[in-house]
């Protein structure tokens, strides 16, 4: 999983496989960080207090 694991080889297989994997991990985590962050900011700005407003 990491280059320091001894079975790691720098080859096309590892580039493709872990490239795709880390790409997905990053997208998902960035996406979630964005959502949580924005929601925190929104909450602090008083949004969503009275429910119903700004509903989809």
């Amino acid at each position, binding site marked *: *999983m990491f280059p320091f694991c001894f079975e790691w080889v720098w080859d096309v297989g590892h580039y493709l496989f872990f490239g795709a994997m880390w790409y997905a991990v990053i997208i998902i985590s960035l996406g979630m960080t964005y959502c*949580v962050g924005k929601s925190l900011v929104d909450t602090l700005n008083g949004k969503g207090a009275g429910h119903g407003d700004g509903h989809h």
Partner: protein
Amino acid sequence: MDSALIPEGARRCPFPVFAAGIAVASAVLLWGVYAMGLVWIKGLNQTNMNDYYGFALWIWADLAVIAIGGGAFFTGLLRYVFGIDELKHIINLAVVIGVICYSSALLILAIDIGQPLRGWFIFWHANVHSMLTEVAFCLSLYFSVLIIEFIPLVLENRQLDKVPFFHNLGHNMHGIMAVFAATGAFLSCFHQGSLGGVAGVLYGRPFAFREGLLIWPWTFFLFTWSAAAYGPCFTLTVCKIFEGVTRKKLVKDNVVDLLAKISGWMIATYIIAKIIDTIYWAGVTVSDMGFSFMHFYSDNAFYGVWILFTEIVICGIVPAILLTVKRFREDKKLLILAIVLGTIGVCINRWVMVLQVVAVPVMSFDTWALYIPSWQEVATTILPIAYGIIVLSLAYRYLPMFPQEQELYDAK
């Protein structure tokens, strides 16, 4: 009693009735949990698996729940990426089913391995050439995507929605759901495929082996395609079961019809591909290995040509016709027949690709190996069903799972 949690205006059965139902399901669940405990404590000797049947009932259950849970990724793809908006009325159900199926799949994998405490080695010491590694990575990542897709629905619960942060979070997640859905669809396509690859790469097992494109055997594509095709059948089946149990209409006909039609065309194209694949496999692949087609379907007490016929004709061609032809699709009974057949069809496909693969003798002096699962295997396989019923019931009762419910009720 729990009315504060129930979506506003929704009509739900009295709490004691609901609780009784949950209790029944929980009893079954506990039975499964007991069996699971036995397997974890005493080891896999609790199963009837053996050195011939290294993969058995559980791996089938795993492949099957993932295939029928495929409705989630495919509906998500259609809804968020291709922008087919009507599907938003059924996407919640698809997502909940997806969450159930994928969490069950992960649980079954955790029971199925001989050293569950070392299960994380599959990530840590990953062998990128193994299809199973790809499955593990994509499966767990996609499961996190499903959770992300599920969270906004949970946050729509009446009480949770009152919390401003949760309200905002749900809102914001909705906002970028297309990104998640696209990632999920990509991951899901891959792991559905790699599940097909699990069987397809076995060049020592002629029944499973398929030639293919680059590193991917044809089963890779067939599995993805069939999950996308048959997954919605299961989503619709569950939807129909809900409507039957609650004696309410929950999703509008046009939505059902649309999903059924898409599923029908997917099945139709899939089954053509599957037939071509089967013919090529029988005529070229195994022929080169010295086998005749009938080798795989004779000289044993169970596996006959009937299973192939059932998979391809009864559970493939028939639902494809029923779902693509408008007249049939609009007939309620035929629609139900078609979606049930479709669900069974994909399960049979996964069965043969796991169990028949290992049952077939490969060495000329070997014999067919048949196996009957132990009760512990059956119990742990039923466990996800009980668990699914509980989660679906809770979700239905406390979350606005069917956006059209109120509208349809009012229209009645």
